[in-house]
């Protein structure tokens, strides 16, 4: 079984396989998906680790993410620079966490970061409001949004500091049976 591909070295593929939840074939398939977004930018030879970053607009135009209201946050969380411009490593990381094999805690961690709009390691009221508006496409009135935020804080904030920390979020996720199946993108 020889290495027929020349995109990655064997060590690179092994490293990718160990650090993500993908097999070799899936990694190569993902590489081709990544390349299809911008064939002129992405070289076919990754053995010397070129520094190629695809801008957010290309990532956000993928069919899996195109209509997702949280696509910008997903790209920002997984990108190295925090702006949504992703290297291949970020790309693989993103789909690895969103795959079906990733454990619940890992997904909960990243979900927490996605919903934390102002990146302060807490989901505060403004983050919640933004999440709600994205979820319902601004169909709820302002009063309703405020009430939902208050109620969510009541329910999930265990240490009563007015915002959700990672532990609160993880505790709440542990009680939701369908989180694993909804926080999943098939690619």
């Amino acid at each position, binding site marked *: 079984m020889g290495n027929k591909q020349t995109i990655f070295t064997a*060590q690179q593929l*092994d*490293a990718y396989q*160990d*650090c*993500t*939840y993908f097999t070799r074939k899936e990694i190569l398939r993902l590489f081709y998906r990544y390349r299809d977004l911008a064939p002129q930018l992405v070289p076919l030879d990754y053995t010397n680790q070129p520094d190629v970053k695809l801008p957010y607009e290309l990532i956000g135009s993928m069919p899996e993410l*195109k*209509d*997702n209201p*949280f696509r910008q946050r997903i790209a920002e969380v997984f990108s*190295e*620079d*925090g*702006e949504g411009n992703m290297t291949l*490593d*970020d790309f*693989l*990381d993103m789909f690895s966490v*969103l795959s*079906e*094999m*990733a454990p*619940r805690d*890992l997904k909960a*961690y990243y979900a927490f970061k996605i*919903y934390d709009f*102002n990146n*302060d*390691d807490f989901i505060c009221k403004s983050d*919640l409001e933004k*999440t*709600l508006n994205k*979820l*319902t*496409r601004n169909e*709820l009135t302002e009063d*309703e949004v405020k*009430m*939902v935020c208050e109620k*969510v804080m009541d*329910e999930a904030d*265990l*240490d*009563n*500091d*007015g915002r959700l920390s*990672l532990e609160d979020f993880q*505790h*709440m*996720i*542990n*009680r*939701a*049976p*369908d*989180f694993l199946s*909804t*926080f999943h*993108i098939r690619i």
Partner: protein
Amino acid sequence: MSKTERSNSSVYITGTNRAILSVFLVSFSSGLALQEGTATANCDHHRPWHTMGASVLTFVKRSLTMKTLQKADQVRTLSDFSKNQHSMPRDSESTNSSEGSKEPFNRKLKSSSQGTKCSAATRRVLSSHSTGSHSSAGMSMRVRRTPALQQPQTSSRDSVHTPNIDGIILPELKEISTEGLACIERNKEELASDLRGLSVSEGMRKLRAMPLSLVDKMEIRRRCFSPSAVNSLNRNFPCFNLPLVYISRMWRHFTFNALPFLSTLKLWHSSMKKLSGRYGTGVLSYFLFLRTLLFINLLLFIITCLFLVIPQAIHPPPTDPRLNSVTAIELLTGTGYLSQSLMFYSYYSNVTIETNQMSSHIAVTHMVPYCIPTAYFLTITISFFIMCIILVYSMSKSFGKSFQVLKSNRNLSENVFCSWDFKVSKKPSIRLQHEKISTQLKEQLSELTSREEEMSLMQRLRNLIVHVLAWVTCLASILLSAVGVYFISKHTVSSEFKNLDLLFKSAVVSGFNLLLPGIFNLCSWFEKHSSPSTRVYVSIFRNLLLKISLIGVLCYHWLEKIAVKQDRQVLECWENFVGQELYRLLLMDFIFTVLYTFLGEFIWRLFSKKVLKKNRKPVFDIARNVLELIYGQTLTWLGVRFSPLLPAVQIAKLFVLFYMKKCSLKLNCQASKKPWRATQMTTLFITLLWFPSFLGAAVSVMYTVWMITPSSGCGPFRNLTSMFESGKLWAERMKDSHKILSWLIQAYNTVIDNPLFLFLPTCVFLLVVYFHAQIVDGQRKIIRRLEKQIENEVKDKRFLITQLQHWNEENEPGSTQR
């Protein structure tokens, strides 16, 4: 003769004992199942229920230990700090060198940290201890964040970071720009050393599960595993392990991929998705209930078909040639041709069919005797038993989903964070999702905001009078309808050979079923209930009372008729008669529902548009429709003993009903703005299906099996004293012929003859249920106490931080003065 009489009476006594004990057993087993169900509420399906409480406890304890650790450290640093303040003013000066740049951060802190202000010194004290804490999340968050420190040009993003106090503290940028890289290195080295201690595969698994970026993970991997080990990592699995790994991976992929495929195989899956998106979860729960009933009936039909209908169909008994033509009205009334068909009880013969015919197209080499009476008896009892088990199981499962051990109403946060399905990518589906989530949130919100208003005494009195009047009206109408049905049944007895008269009674019953809920709705419109869910419960209760009284009156009338007519032999085949009555009731119910759905809702919509000039379409009344379904199902269960093909009629009826209701929903109804707690309601419906409906039907059928003499002129049980006796005769026969079965039957007899054998398991069940209930209660108490403790810890921490700050401030002016 006397011996048989005596044995009969002893059968009677132990029979009732048996009945009582079996009812106890069943109810206690269902209670036990319920306990299991409630205890599995809200926990991962893979964790056993008794570790649910343990998992909550561990989480709470972990956060507590973190906080106590921090608190202890803070107490220590407070004392150190106060000691050192006076002796080392110069040190604080060096750290205060960039004091000016700290001002904007201080201001940001003031705004973000709820009024508590901290100087840099305090922050440094607290941060130096948080770096010492070993929470993996904290460490990983720091490592993930610190790569951003390497690029100070992206300060636009970093300046938004407000260092926070209560959580993991990030030292401010300008202070640690030199320490930044060292910090990263230290963290990575710590993580790598953590992993080095584990075995290779275990370490890889842990590495994958770490919330770090891929670059960092590869770096750590490079550090902690030597190159040679890395190369041999996944390549040198021991031989036996490799196929296991592949198999487990394939299995996981398979189950995850099969899930959506299996769900598309489910009946009506896509239409239900559309309905739920447009009309909400309440309407969806009605259709889900309909589908569940369809499957139950399908199962019942398959069992009776396989074991009863088909063997009898292959060997038809001689029939009366006069009744070979079918007319339309006879299809409705069930008399005539149908009464001599597989549909009804009288068709079934009381012989043992021996398949020794050479002329049949199936060549049989040996004789397979098939005793129809035994088959009839066993099919009925076993199918009821299976129904019982299925219903108890689904009841306990839905109890588990709807019952919450901890705070109630956790669903709102789950809905916000866990309900968006990231897999969905098509635009119309995404739009549906948005709608669904908005509707769900609105429902839950309006339920939560039902507030109690303070009412004056006069208003309360008025409310009470209105309530009493409404209840009196409803109960009176129910009573009147029951009495009316009773008198009509008595009246039609005399002229029972006219087809239309036969239909008249069923029509009257269905008419009452249709009209009276309208009266109930009118009454409840006048009443003012404390919350919308109370209104729903009251309406369900009234409808239920109506249906129970109607069915009760009918059953009473039939029993009365059977008991009287037995002697006079006018009614030759009472099972046929009862079966036909039930068949007619079912059909009339269906016809009236069709008429109501198409005409009634349509006319109501026109009426409200033209006359009332409102553009509001009527709302789908879920409670009433579900009770209609339960009523139909009760009739089916009552009737299966008399007419084995009745489940087929019910299946056809449910099928048509689905499409009809869907159609009328789209045309005539709109989404309800009232809240509807779907899981609670589903649990309630299944409970209603179990308790009055199934148990009532089962008890009545078992009563007819045990007590009532079958008619001597027709059916498989002629010349027997009861249906149950055929089972006993079969047992006697088996004892002689089969060795294993005889042993089984002997065991059964000894168990049943000894009531102690049933008392003991009942007592054991009682004890187990009691213990489980106590454990759940105790865990609930502990959880509440620990939650309170967390709150207190946070308060303590805040107090200590303010104290620290206070001392800081006190001493700072002192140091600058020097």
